[in-house]
């Protein structure tokens, strides 16, 4: 691995850490009691700082250090989750992410002095103005040459560290052995394990921790290097750390000790004990010096228990441990490789279906060995298919998380107050869709805060909570993913929309528009209602760009607004590569797939039971009249509304709640389908959301039930113009 690729890994990890930070802030927002999040944020920032130090990114290290210091103060407060300074830290983390991006791309490092000043001001009383010895990160070049025992015994200070790990310590994959190894690089170390707390087997609880460790380190390295190592596990362990310098210079170092100890909140209770034990230190130090380093290698790992105990205790702890781990290890794979796998997979599935078909015609015996084998392959293929799809699908969460930064920034620009609420952030979508979502969402959220959410004063006057809410949600619906951005602001001002649109010549003066048509004006190119142009939105490109980029992804945008109560924008996007549960139907000799999620029921109907009301066919289902849509005629595959003698009706519901009966010739059962995009080589086709490949190798179209219903029932304008427009984008 050359340095560059290590750097790449570092930046990828930075991204992960930043996501962790966002997650922490999100959780704190909804539940300030979650103090663990403050620690998690702290650890993430610390990791970034550590990695940056190793590469000598000094600007990054310095800034991260400032942020970390602030956080350190906060987390030692009695109620860290409610500390008002967390907001400042959050903005600083945004800035930090910019610094990281600039460092990665070799761009100009953004000026952080502003934040540094703010941070220093906010934490002025809590951080001593010492010249930050921790910045000397270059002092930790990883030296892999083993310590030589022959060297003269170091005459440095002796650190006594008592560790009692909690369960969380092990759950995070930490290990006392690792800690000991790191410490042993600084000097000579001896470890004692206190197993007196371990109960007999009958009382043994595998989810509790019983072992305590005493690590004694004699080192010449500065004290903060030692604390840097143990700092990692502070949150998860009870740690006491005492320092004793055998030489006369000890008293000089002592003031630092207090500073160091101040950081260990969990140590406070045990401090006295540790301090008073200093009387014994010289003797211990001596012992530590003579202890061979090799001992460390044979240090019993806490999971494995002590050798002497092993006989008495079979290893329930060991056995149970993996089950308690929260995350499994991950690997990073280029998406191209996954794409290739998926394409091959698709081909294999089709070939297998074709093989099955040719075999079944040759021999009818279902129990023949080859038929059995084929069924086995079928089962395996399905499993492989699902696993491969699961690789490609990712939760939308990372993109959603990024939006909380946008909310913060937009709020600080406009002086408004808003929080982001997420829903369905674990909805899985194909990665390409996720990538394409980021920009439109950014625009929409800025817009919602800039134009939607009112100022705190206005909101108070209206009897609303001073703080607005932007709700970002995702869900699967009819084989598409629906992402909605909803604010509880003022809603659209239709009067002003019409006025502006008329002024800009987008609509004719005096044109009669329905409410939804007026709302949709905001998507018109060159439209902006902001009376004050801000640097956030209001350049009149925002919503137009949103519409275009969503259409480029094969999606649709719709808006609904409730004056005084807020606006909701819904993006309906295809799952470019995903599996869909669908019903197979036939109409006019073609096979179509209707997403199972929108089918309420199926019934067969005789021709005479379809009635005609005002030229529109309806059918009576129990006590309600349901409009009938003849699919073959609707798609233009039958010239007139001719109808077979016996037909099947699918009662379907659109996402807006409208329902209708789709009339088809025949219903052929249900199945899972791999969704194939029509957009890739062709473009959007009205009434069709995507295509799939049947077992015969033939293509079947997946019907877009929402579009069919909404245009047929007159809820949406006829698609003629939409078709041309969407084609132009595709």
């Amino acid at each position, binding site marked *: 691995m050359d340095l560059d690729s290590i750097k790449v890994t570092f930046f990828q990890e930075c991204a992960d850490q930043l996501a962790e930070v966002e997650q922490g802030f999100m959780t704190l927002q909804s539940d300030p009691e979650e103090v663990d999040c403050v620690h998690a944020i702290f650890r993430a920032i610390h990791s970034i700082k550590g990695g940056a130090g190793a590469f000598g990114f000094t600007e990054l290290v310095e800034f991260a250090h400032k942020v970390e210091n602030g956080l350190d103060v906060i987390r030692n407060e009695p109620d860290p989750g409610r500390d008002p300074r967390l907001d400042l830290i959050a903005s600083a983390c945004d800035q930090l992410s910019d610094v990281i991006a600039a460092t990665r791309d070799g761009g100009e490092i953004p000026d952080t002095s502003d934040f540094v000043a703010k941070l220093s001001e906010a934490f002025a009383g809590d951080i001593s103005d010492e010249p930050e010895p921790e910045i000397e990160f270059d002092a930790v070049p990883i030296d892999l040459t083993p310590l030589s025992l022959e060297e003269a015994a170091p005459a440095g200070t002796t650190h006594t560290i008592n560790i009692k790990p909690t369960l969380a310590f092990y759950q995070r994959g930490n290990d006392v052995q690792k800690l000991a190894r790191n410490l042993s690089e600084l000097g000579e170390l001896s470890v004692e394990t206190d197993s007196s707390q371990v109960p007999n087997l009958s009382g043994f609880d595998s989810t509790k921790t019983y072992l305590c460790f005493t690590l004694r380190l004699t080192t010449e390295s500065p004290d903060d290097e030692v604390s840097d190592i143990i700092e990692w596990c502070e949150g998860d362990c009870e740690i006491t750390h005492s320092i004793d310098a055998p030489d006369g210079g000890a008293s000089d170092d002592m003031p630092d000790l207090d500073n160091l100890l101040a950081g260990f909140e969990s140590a406070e209770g045990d401090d006295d004990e540790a301090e008073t034990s200093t009387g014994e230190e010289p003797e211990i130090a001596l012992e530590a010096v003579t202890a061979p380093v090799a001992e460390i290698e044979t240090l019993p790992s806490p999971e494995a228990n002590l050798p002497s105990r092993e006989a008495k205790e079979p290893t329930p702890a060991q056995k149970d441990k993996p089950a308690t781990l929260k995350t499994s290890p991950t690997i990073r794979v280029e998406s191209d490789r996954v794409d290739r796998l998926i394409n091959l997979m698709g081909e294999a599935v089709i070939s297998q279906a074709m093989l099955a078909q040719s075999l079944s015609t040759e021999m009818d015996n279902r129990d023949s060995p080859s038929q059995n084998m084929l069924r086995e392959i079928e089962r395996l293929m399905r499993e492989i298919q699902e696993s491969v799809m699961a690789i490609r699908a990712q939760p939308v969460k990372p993109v959603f998380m990024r939006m909380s930064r946008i909310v913060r920034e937009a709020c600080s620009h406009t002086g408004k107050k808003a929080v982001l609420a997420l829903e369905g952030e674990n909805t899985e979508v194909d990665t390409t869709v996720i990538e394409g979502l980021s920009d439109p969402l950014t625009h929409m959220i800025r817009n919602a805060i800039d134009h939607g959410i009112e100022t705190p004063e206005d909101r108070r006057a209206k009897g609303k909570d001073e703080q607005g809410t932007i709700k970002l949600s995702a869900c699967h619906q009819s084989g598409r993913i629906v992402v909605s951005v909803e604010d509880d602001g003022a809603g659209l001002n239709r009067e002003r929309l019409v006025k502006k649109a008329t002024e800009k010549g987008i609509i004719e003066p005096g044109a009669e528009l329905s409410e939804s048509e007026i709302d949709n004006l905001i998507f018109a190119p060159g439209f902006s209602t902001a009376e004050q142009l801000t640097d956030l939105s209001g350049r009149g490109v925002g919503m137009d760009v949103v519409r275009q980029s969503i259409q480029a992804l094969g999606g649709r945008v719709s808006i609904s607004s409730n004056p005084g109560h807020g606006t909701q924008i819904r993006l309906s996007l295809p799952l470019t590569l995903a599996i869909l549960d669908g019903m197979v139907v036939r109409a006019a000799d073609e096979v179509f797939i209707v997403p199972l999620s929108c089918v309420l029921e199926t019934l067969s109907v005789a021709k005479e039971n379809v009635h005609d009301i005002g030229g529109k066919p309806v059918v009576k289902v129990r006590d309600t009249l349901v409009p009938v849509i003849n699919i073959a005629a609707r*798609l233009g595959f039958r010239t007139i509304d001719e109808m077979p003698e016996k037909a099947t009706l699918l009662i379907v519901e659109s996402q807006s709640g409208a329902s209708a009966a789709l009339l088809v010739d025949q219903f052929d059962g249900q199945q899972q389908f791999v969704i194939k995009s*029509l957009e890739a080589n062709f473009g959007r*086709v009205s009434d069709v959301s995507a*295509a799939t490949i049947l077992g015969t190798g*033939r*293509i079947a179209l997946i019907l877009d039930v929402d579009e069919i219903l909404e245009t047929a029932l007159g809820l949406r304008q006829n698609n003629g113009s939409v078709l041309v427009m969407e084609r132009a984008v*595709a």
Partner: protein
Amino acid sequence: MTENHHSTREFIAFMVQGRQFCIDITSIREIRGWNDATKLPHVPDYVVGVVNLRGTILPIIDVSARFGLGDCKPSPQSVVIVAQVGDRMAGMLVDSVSDILQVAPDDIRDLPDMDTPVGAEYLRQVILHEDAIICEVLLENIISTTLQDAA
């Protein structure tokens, strides 16, 4: 290899309604027999439908209908030329593939100002080949779905 060979370009010649056209061989991915396509709703009549090309959805364009020469009524003898423009692929339904042409640069000429039943927007240039004059089609415009049928 001779010098001449270097600069020679190859074209595939095909027949549509008794007329010969050609296309640069480098943009052709493969040539397939005709399989029944799945019809698409609400599309111009020159879009025959879509077929499965090893897991990819391949739209099929009826070149004859596109050129305004009438529907070609696909038969088992019809041929689909799979061509690629940028990252888009499409199949062109033609009556048959007739020849592979080796053409020297001198034999490639600009499109003359002429009145043909085929709209000039679908033609790129002309090729002189053994006394015959063959038009090279402009693939981009044939498979483009944004260009409205001008013919």
